[in-house]
Each structure stands twice: as structure tokens, then as C-alpha cells.
């Protein structure tokens, strides 16, 4: 697709004259105010190590005879260094695309300098373009690295560079937010009427100014004019971005704007529309050699097709096809792109491919044995959330497979051992995915067929001054996946060893694991504990913890304030039942109180029930998280919820000797 657009540029023979904004630039290189020089603290965040005074970006299109359209991005940044930690801001790098074919991005101008106050006078230390190092990061990416000189606490540093890019249809996102606070971040972009870009905003900060307008320009040597759309966004007092627990990826939370080319309409050239709707996007994909067309090509996996009995039920075929792909294809650990880089045939001979390639191969195999199957485009959690209002191919980074069974959707990912049809990994469970077929697209919720769930049964006995227990734990779904992967990578022995280590004071005499290789069943762990050495059960009074096993003791939400939503990803249920036999000669003196805590609308619940039944104490303890996303405003609620759980774990059962 990229190449198509670039050739289009050659049809255009326009020269755009430069335009000036009515607005003044927010910053002028070299003009640092006294106030900026004398600043010692940023009062909106007094602990800031440095603060971005201004970050100013301008993006302009222009035309060059020899190379067609180009794009200039100018970044102009001024930073105040407030503490020694802030000195790191003076080491800067930015990356460029290096095509190896001559169509490279170039730095066409570069300025950088440091301002210090010495005896009340501003002293400037400059660096030149020669002091910028070029690091070959990978085949197509180079990094420009430079260090400003004479930077001390109190310095103001400033740099400005312009990158000229022939890839005018690909504008990098502009980030208004930084790891340090920013006083002003401004972006201006001028787009000739011939191009329409979609502008997609992200983050939790809103702009203080958002303007658009138009100006006109004349073609050189002509009285004909054309329009230039102008945009200007100003953000002010943007807090530093700090990563928190339970978020998808920082990119989903940073204040930014992204650009996607929507259409081109050039005089004398046909109007071109790029990915205006999800439907169109799906259709284009299905017509692409590197995606849709490959799906119905037969004979990709002939030897596997032959292993599936055409007379089997759909369910059986799915299971067979899924297992065959999973066992025969190695995932190369990359999400790849949603397109296939290699033909499916070569993927199948190499027995190795990206996640998209492996799952497209699965769709191909399913179709070749007569199962209705489709690719589903997804964005992994590490890639970020999808904005359904902005159809963009870049929203997605990989593909899973979907089969229809009696009208129901079965999602599949054949890259991971120990998954089964109906399950996706944690990283894939990110909102919705786009199912694409020849004639339509459909959003499908990315859910695993089961919850994160575990159930344990613990039978406790006290005898001869020892407290022993038998623990049977059954784990399903993603929790089981995590355990199975751990068992496979560490080996059973090591896995058990690690458990013993975590509970080092227990004497564990037996530990068996069942179904670790059979993902159709729950994973079973049976543990025999001969003695909990950390509990003394010999005196007249016996104190037993209210929960005897390895449960949470720390509140996962200890931070005082939460800036961003909390995302648990998957609903979960953990249930434990304890049966404690009251030893001969003892009576129950006191039991913990039963409690039940529920968040509004049953979003999450915790219950602890306890009763004495004859010579037994029975405890049923259950934690359930149904709703997976919580707003920062609900943080206190969650924190309180966990506090209750932990308080309950701190209580004890008291048994008393009969006198």
C-alpha cells in the first residue's frame, strides 16, 4: 500500500508557497527569558527533576521537483533542569527511517545549546551537527544521539531539529506528554487541501486550545489559488507520565495525537479514499495477496489436511486442525504484522512464523476441511487499545482465528502450547477484535471461554502436636495456562521446588500434578503437608490462621492515588474450602466472624463463611472479580475491598483444651 501512494506523488506538480500563521510562535530559539533562567522549582510539581518549558512541533508539506511531496517535521524543545536527576534530559535521541534505497529521512537542520547564568550573565554553550552520533539500531532504523554540554542544575537546554521525510503519508504521532511535566506543548500542522488526514487523540489530558482554520496560497506563476488547512493544538500544564500497575500499555494513556491518511484528491488525478471504514478496510485486506487471497489457496498444508477425516464433526475437525497447526508450526515469538511476510506455503515448509502467519495458516487449514473460519484482527494489550471510531489498519498488530460452530464463535490462537480452542492468552484479551470476511466485518468480543479460576479443598488435621493438611487445587483457563507454561519451562521438579521454597517452613512430603499436558481438563495439584512448622499446636490454646494456605497478604493497591483506570483483563474466581478436624480433647473457643463484602453491582465480591459441624470446622472462602475495568474514582473502593480481605486473613481460629 505504501508504494501505491508514493507513486501517486509523482503525478503532482505543485509547489506550495510557505504560509505564515497569524499566531506567533510560542518559542523563539535563543530567546530564553530571565524568568526561565532563574526558575528553581516547578510549583505545580515541586518534586520535578526537570520540566519541559515548551515543546513545539510544526509539520509542513511541500513539493520538490526531484522527489515529489515531502514532509518536514520540526521539533523545538526547551527544558529547565531542576535537580541532578534531571541532567539525564540533556542526553537526547530521536530515530529516523533508513530505507537503504535512497528514500531516507534526513535531518536538514539542527541546533542545540545550553544556557547557564554565570555572574548574572547568560552564557551559551552550543553543539554542532557534527556532534550528533549516528547509531544503526536495525536495518531500517537509525538513531541520532547527542549530548548537550555544560549542563548543570539550573541550566536551560534547548534544541531544534527538522526531519525531512519523503513519506508524507506517514506522520509520526505527536506526544504532548512526557516523563517529566510539561508547561506548554504545541503542535501546528498545515495540510494542503489535496490530503485528508484523520486525527486521533489519546490520553487523559485535554487541550487548552484547539483551533483549525484555512488559509490560501497561490500556485507560482498562476492566479489560481488552493486551500491549506491549518490546525493548532496547545496543551498546558501536563503532568509527568508515570507507569502504574494494571494498565495495558503506556501508549494508551499518554496524551498524544496520531494521523492517518484518509484520502487524496489531486487535480487531474482520481480521488482516492484510504480505509475510510472498517468494511472497506476488511474488503481491501481480503483482496490482498498477503492476506485474504492466501486464505483460500489450497494445498498450503496438504499433508495436514489429509490427516483430518472429512466425515468428522465440526468440533472434532476444529480440535484436530488446531492441534495439528500448534504442534507443527513454531511461533517465532513475534506478533509480526497482520499481513503475512512470507507466503503461507513457505511458512508451512519452514514450520515457523509470526502469530499472524500461524493463525492465518490455521484458518486456511480449517477452510480446506470445510469448516467456516475467519481471521480476526486484534491489538494485543502491549500494542494498546483499539478506538472503534477510527478505522485504521495500524490499530491492529496481529491475528487470531475464529471458527463458527452452530452459530457460535470459537476463538483460537495456535501459537501457544496448552491453550485450546476457545481460549486466548492474557495479552490477546484486549476489548474487541475485527472478524473479516469477503463481504463483511464484525466486531467480536475477545473473551476466553472460561474465567481465571481456581478451587481448592484443604483438609486439616491436628495430631501429636503436629498440624498436617491435604490440599487439592484445581485450576482452569488462563491461570492453568500460566501454571502449565511454568511447569513445562521449569520442569515439574523445579516447579515443585519453587512452591516449597515459597512456603519454606512447611514440611511437604508429597506433591503431585495431574493434567499438566492435557488442557482439556483442569490442572490438578495435590499437596500433602506433614507439618506447618510455623504454627504451634501443642499448648492449652491453639491458634490457627483463618486461612491456612498461601494467599495474598499484601494489598495489591497500596498507592494512595490512582491516575489511570485499573484493568484486570479477565474475570476471576478463587474459591477455597477448609475442613479442619477438631483434635481430641479440644473445644472451639472462638471462630473468625463470617463476612461478605460486595462492590456495587456485584463488580467484585469476597465472602468468608465459617461454621462448626460436629467435630469439624468448615470454612468457605471466595474471591470473585466480575467487572474487569475500574475508573480512578473507584480506586478507593477497590483498596477498601482488599483491605477487608487482608484483615480477615489476619484473624485466627482459637481452640481450647478441655480441662
Amino acid at each position, binding site marked *: 500500500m505504501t508504494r501505491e501512494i508514493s507513486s501517486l506523488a509523482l503525478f503532482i506538480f505543485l509547489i506550495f508557497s510557505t504560509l505564515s500563521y497569524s499566531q506567533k510562535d510560542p518559542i523563539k530559539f535563543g530567546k530564553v527569558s530571565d524568568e526561565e533562567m532563574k526558575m528553581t522549582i516547578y510549583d505545580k*510539581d515541586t*518534586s*520535578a*527533576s526537570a520540566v519541559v518549558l515548551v515543546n513545539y512541533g510544526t509539520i509542513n508539506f511541500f513539493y520538490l521537483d526531484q522527489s515529489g511531496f515531502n514532509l518536514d517535521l520540526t521539533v523545538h524543545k526547551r527544558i529547565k533542569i531542576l*535537580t*541532578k536527576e534531571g*541532567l539525564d534530559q540533556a*542526553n537526547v535521541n530521536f530515530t529516523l527511517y533508513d530505507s537503504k534505497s535512497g528514500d531516507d529521512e534526513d535531518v536538514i537542520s539542527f541546533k542545540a545549546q545550553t544556557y547557564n547564568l554565570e555572574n548574572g550573565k547568560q552564557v551559551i*554553550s552550543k553543539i554542532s551537527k557534527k556532534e550528533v*552520533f549516528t547509531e*544503526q*539500531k*536495525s*536495518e531500517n532504523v537509525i538513531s541520532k*544521539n*547527542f*549530548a548537550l*554540554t*555544560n*549542563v*548543570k*542544575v539550573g541550566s536551560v537546554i534547548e534544541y531544534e531539529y527538522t526531519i525531512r521525510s519523503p513519506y508524507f503519508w506517514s506522520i509520526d504521532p505527536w506526544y504532548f506528554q512526557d516523563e517529566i511535566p510539561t508547561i506548554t506543548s504545541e503542535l501546528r500542522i498545515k495540510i494542503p487541501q489535496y490530503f485528508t488526514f484523520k486525527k486521533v487523540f489519546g490520553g487523559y489530558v485535554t487541550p487548552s486550545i484547539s483551533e483549525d482554520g484555512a488559509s490560501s496560497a497561490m500556485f507560482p506563476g498562476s492566479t489560481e489559488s488552493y486551500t491549506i488547512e491549518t490546525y493548532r493544538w496547545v496543551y498546558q500544564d501536563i503532568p509527568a507520565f508515570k507507569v502504574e500497575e494494571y494498565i495495558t500499555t503506556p501508549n494508551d494513556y499518554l496524551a498524544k495525537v496520531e494521523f492517518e491518511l484518509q484520502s487524496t484528491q489531486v487535480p487531474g488525478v482520481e480521488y482516492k479514499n484510504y480505509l475510510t471504514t472498517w468494511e472497506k478496510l476488511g474488503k481491501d485486506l481480503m483482496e490482498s495477496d498477503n492476506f485474504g487471497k492466501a486464505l483460500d489457496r489450497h494445498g498450503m498444508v496438504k499433508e495436514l489436511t489429509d490427516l483430518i477425516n472429512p466425515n468428522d464433526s465440526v468440533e472434532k475437525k476444529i480440535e484436530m486442525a488446531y492441534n495439528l497447526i500448534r504442534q507443527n508450526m*513454531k511461533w*517465532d*515469538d513475534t506478533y509480526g504484522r497482520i499481513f503475512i511476510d512470507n507466503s503461507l506455503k513457505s511458512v508451512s515448509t*519452514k*514450520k*515457523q512464523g509470526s502469530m499472524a502467519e500461524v493463525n492465518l495458516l490455521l484458518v486456511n487449514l480449517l477452510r480446506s476441511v470445510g469448516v467456516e473460519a475467519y481471521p480476526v484482527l486484534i491489538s494485543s494489550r502491549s500494542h494498546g487499545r483499539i478506538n472503534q471510531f477510527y478505522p485504521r489498519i495500524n490499530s491492529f498488530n496481529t491475528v487470531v482465528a475464529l471458527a463458527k460452530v452452530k452459530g457460535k464463535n470459537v476463538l483460537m490462537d495456535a501459537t501457544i*502450547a496448552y491453550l485450546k480452542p476457545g481460549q486466548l492468552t492474557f495479552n490477546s484479551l484486549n476489548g474487541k477484535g475485527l472478524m473479516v470476511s469477503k463481504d463483511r466485518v464484525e466486531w467480536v468480543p475477545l473473551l476466553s471461554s472460561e474465567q481465571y479460576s481456581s478451587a481448592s479443598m484443604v483438609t486439616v488435621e491436628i495430631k501429636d502436636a503436629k498440624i498436617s493438611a491435604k490440599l487439592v487445587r484445581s485450576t482452569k483457563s488462563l491461570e492453568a495456562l500460566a501454571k502449565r507454561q511454568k511447569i*513445562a*519451562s521449569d*520442569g515439574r521438579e523445579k516447579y515443585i521446588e519453587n512452591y*516449597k*521454597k515459597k512456603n*519454606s*517452613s512447611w514440611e511437604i512430603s508429597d506433591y503431585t500434578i495431574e493434567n499438566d499436558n492435557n488442557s482439556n481438563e483442569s490442572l490438578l495439584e495435590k499437596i500433602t503437608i506433614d507439618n506447618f*512448622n*510455623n504454627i504451634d499446636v501443642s*499448648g492449652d*490454646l491453639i*491458634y490457627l490462621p483463618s486461612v491456612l494456605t498461601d494467599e495474598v*497478604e*499484601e*494489598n495489591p493497591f*497500596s*498507592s494512595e*492515588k490512582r491516575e489511570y483506570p485499573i484493568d484486570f483483563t479477565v474475570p476471576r474466581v478463587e474459591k477455597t474450602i477448609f475442613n479442619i478436624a477438631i483434635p481430641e480433647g479440644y473445644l472451639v*473457643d*472462638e*471462630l*473468625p*466472624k463470617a463476612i461478605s463484602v460486595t462492590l456495587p453491582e456485584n463488580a467484585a465480591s469476597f465472602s468468608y463463611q465459617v461454621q462448626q459441624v460436629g467435630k469439624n470446622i468448615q470454612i468457605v472462602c471466595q474471591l470473585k472479580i466480575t467487572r474487569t475495568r475500574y475508573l480512578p474514582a473507584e480506586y478507593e473502593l477497590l483498596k477498601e475491598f482488599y*483491605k477487608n480481605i*487482608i*484483615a*480477615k486473613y*489476619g*484473624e*485466627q481460629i*482459637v481452640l481450647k483444651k478441655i480441662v
Partner: protein
Amino acid sequence: MKIILSILILLVSVGFFGQTNYNYSNIPDDLKKNANYIIWQDFMEFEVLDIGSAVQKVKMAVCIVDQYSKKFNSIVAPYRKNEKITGFKAEIYDRDGNFVKKLKSSEIHDVSSVSSFSLFEDDRVMYADFIHGQYPYTLVYEYERKVEGLLNYPSKYFQRITNTGVVLSQINLIIPNNIQFKYKEFNLGQEVKVTDLGKKKIYSWTEKNLKPIESFELPPPDSCFAPILLLAPVQFAEGGYEGQMDNWENFGKWDLKLNKDRDLLSESKINELQFLVKDAKNDKEKVQILYKYMQNKTRYVSVQLGIGGYQPFTAEYVDSKGYGDCKALSNYMFSLLKAVGVKSNYALILAGSGEDDIAADFPSSQFNHAILCIPQLKDSIWLECTSQQQPFNFLGSFTDDRHALLITENGGKIVKTPKYVKDINFQNRKAKIKLDVDGNAVGNVNTIFNGLQYENRDGWANQSVKEQKDALKSVYTVAGLEINSFRFIENKAEIPNIQEQLDINIQGFAPVTNKRMFLKINVFNESSYVPKNEERTHPFELRSEFIDSDTVQIEIPDGYSIESIPQPVNLQTKFGGYSVEILHEGNIITYIRKNYSEKNIFPAKDYIAFYEYRKQIAKADKAKLVLVKKF
């Protein structure tokens, strides 16, 4: 603080195609047990051409057992700017030893290799991601590197990494008779074989049938148990500088050559510096003033180009740019002191908290960092020059208690850096807590972190309030803890300390039932670490020494009396000591805990005793106190 001196990483060794049949079933069982990788053949040939150049041939055949073993997913060939990698080839064989595929040259990448702590280095790396989906399989690869600059000869770790079985691992050094070299062996099974080729000789070391070593806790230095060969030149040339490594003195002379005339400062600068120290009463005060000057003027920026990996940028350069790496900044500090007539020595060291020491009896380039030493009649002054925050004359765990090579006018001299003994590394905590009838607590906790334990809070004082609170909550994991206010008082003395004062309340500190309250008494300093319960074959090392003492005073609410109280504990061992005492008087309970640790390497036979010791500590630290309502 950052590590520097781009060391030639030659740990990457070798294997050989040959006629071997890479059939998995041919591997002896004891090499497969606990193995993630089995090395069929790991072969390196290092042919010294002259004192400054060599040809290194790397050949490797390794069986990768399963998909979780990813260390060989990339084949990596590092090289330097003026060097060349040729003959980069790789093939894959399946479980039965049948050929599967060959690496295409288009799959080989050639990129910069810049360490994460550097702004720029001119080192390069060639690499290829080359895997196969069906396990186990064998990867065979080879390449040849033209080596320029021979400050280092390759070292050989015959068993490279944990969980690796080795069928055969070999290194051949081919060297002309007129060039001397030296070697040092650790735990080798076989002796060196020498073959005379007339004008040159082949020295060959081979290790066979090495069973996989599992990673284990508290490892002593590798040289205590792993088969390792160190090689080093005697005469060498690097970046146009020739030198001798027969002893430390001569090695130091080579470094002296590199630093020659790089300490020059302008006349006006020298005057400025002399003016700065004009009121100083003695040399130490001068050093203090100029250290502060240097810390405020410079920052750490690492740029490594060619010989610049070993040679500092000039003092003039640092002075005009306001930055440098450890070599440049140490040399700069050296120059500042020289300008005011204070003599100091640039010093090379192998830095890193918990890093093994160098082989001090094997003069060779084993360093990754530079610091500065100012000799005094008693107790030299040591300066870490890459940090703007480091207390004066405090090396910290990054460079303490190890060998350093002083570069003196007369050449190199090996000395030891200061050791911080356990009495210095103390953590002293006093807490006062008042408990109410609902089990909630309010109180204050004051802790002093001294010596190396200062590092427990190093840098905290400069963070944002939110970060500080989060950091405090990550070390004090008491459920329900709220920090109402806090303060850090930092004292950047030569033995630095930091005082942490917290005003806290703990909701639900002591869960309450109808009759009772359950009180976990040691909530601020719990040691739950217990090593693995296993038969130990290797020695184990405790890498730090310290003393912790905690006194927690708890006022219990009226109407409650003590029903159960943990027994006192007193353990004294060669590993350290631990004691707990709980006093109660009226409604005041005082918990006194002392825990100290010794730094040492202990023989394997002591391991069980250590395990028992830690187990008892873990249990005692969990102890609970039970209060019961009075009737």
C-alpha cells in the same frame, strides 16, 4: 553510576561442523539430565599474528532441547569498528541429525552495538535470528573475526551457562614462538597440550563430558567451581600503544602512556582552581572542595570510540563539555587536584555491587571502571567521579572491598579498596505504636540507615512525594498502612547515613474477634528468606555484612491482657546472629530484635546449618502475640 571501559567480550566461544552425527539419542543421559542445551562441540581457535592482531575462529554445534531454551535463538558475532567478520554461516539439523536448513545471507543483520548506559560506542555486531520449530534440534554455526588490538585474549568458560551439558569444548591458542603469553586455569579436568609447529606452537585445552550445572543460590565466585581458562598476552599492542603485562607494574605503565598529557588545563583554569582552594587548611579540604566542584560541573556521559574504550578524553575536553565517562571524569578530577598540588592516582577496578573480584595474581585487563585514589598517610581518600550525588570518600557497594590497580608514576600497583564492616552498615529502627480496641494503630517509626545500608534509601530523598510514599509502601508491606507524614534527613558524610521518620496509622493492624486481638509484632523488618533445602555440593557466599536492630514499643488498649506471647530467641552462628526478646510492663509491650550477618564464603558442609538458621529466623519473624479481653 555506570560501568565503562568497553571490555572485549570474547566469552562467545565455539563449535565445529565436522562429521559428527547430531542425533539426539546419541547424547549420554547424564549430559541430558537438567539440560536446556547440550553442546556437541564448542571450538575456538585464536591465532595470534603479531602482538596487536589475531584471527579468531568460532565454531559451535549446540542442541537446543525445548522452546523455553532461548539463549541460542540469536547467533551473535560482536566486533569492533576496524575489524571484520567473515564466513558467518549456520545450519540446523533435526532430532535425528538430518539436515533441515541453512542460514541465508539476507538473514544476517549488521548493526551498531551500543551499551544501554552509553550515548554512543563504535562497536558493531552481526547477528541472525535462526530457530526451528521442532525440538530438540541442533544449531551449527561458525564465523571468523579478524581481531585488531590485543589488550585481551579470549577467556574460556567451558560450560558457558547453567543447565548446559557439554560433550566437547575446546580452545586452541596458536602463537608465534617469539610472543609470550600467560594463562590461568580454574577447575579444569585436563592439562594443556602443546604442539610444536616450528615457528609457532598450538596450546590446546579441552574439556569433555561436563554435566549440566543447575543454577543455585548464594553462588560463590565462578572460579570456585566452574571450569574456566583465563588467557592474557605478555607483550601486546592496542590502538597503537604497545605494552607489557608481565606484572601489574608494567601494565600500569601502559595505562600511564594512554593518560599521558591528557591532564593539561589552561593557565586561567589552574588559577581559578587555586583560588577556589586558597582557604583550605589541608589537602583533604582541597579534595573536598574540588570534588564538589567537579560534581556540580559535570555529568556522566559515555562515548566509547576506538582506543577511547581505554583512554580517557582529555581534561580540557571534560572542562569544556561538562561531561565524560568514568575514565574522563576520574582523569579530570586527577587534573583538578594536580592543579592545586595534590597528588592522586587514577585507579582501574572491576565495579558492580556483588561483582566477583579480579584474579589479582594474574596481571591482565580485567577492569570495567575507573575511580580516583588520593593517597594519605593513613586511610587513602577514594572518589567515585561519575555520580553527582555520591558522598565524598564513600565508594559504596559498587566498588568497596576489592582489588584496584593504582596507576602511579612508577607504574601499576595493586591495592584494596576500603571495606565497610558490619558495625558501620547498621540499620537502627525505633517504633512506637498505640493500639486501640478496634485493632487500629497509630504511631511513629524512626530508622537510621548507615554505611552500606544507606544505599537502602539512597536517592529517595530526591524523589517526588508520591514516589516516596509508593516506595515506602513497597518496603513496608503491612496491610492497612497509611503514611500520614514522613521526612528524610540525609547526612552525606564519609560514612553517610539517612534518617527516615514516619508518622503512620495502620487500619486493622490487629484483627479483633469477640474475645481476642491477634498481633503480628514484627511488621517492619521481616526476614522470610530461607534457602532451598538441598544437599549442597558447592561452597556458598554471603556477600554483605550488616547489623539490623529493631525496637518496637506497643501500647495495648485497656481491658486486654496478654494471652500468648512468643518465646525469646537467641541464635549465634558463624553466619551471623539473631535474637528476639519481648518485654511487657503494664500495658506496654517492647519487642527487641537484633539481626546481623557476616560476609564470607562458607564450605558446602555448612549449608544445612545455614538453612536451619534461616528457617528459625523466618519462623520467629512470623510470630504472633495474642491479647484477650479481661473479664
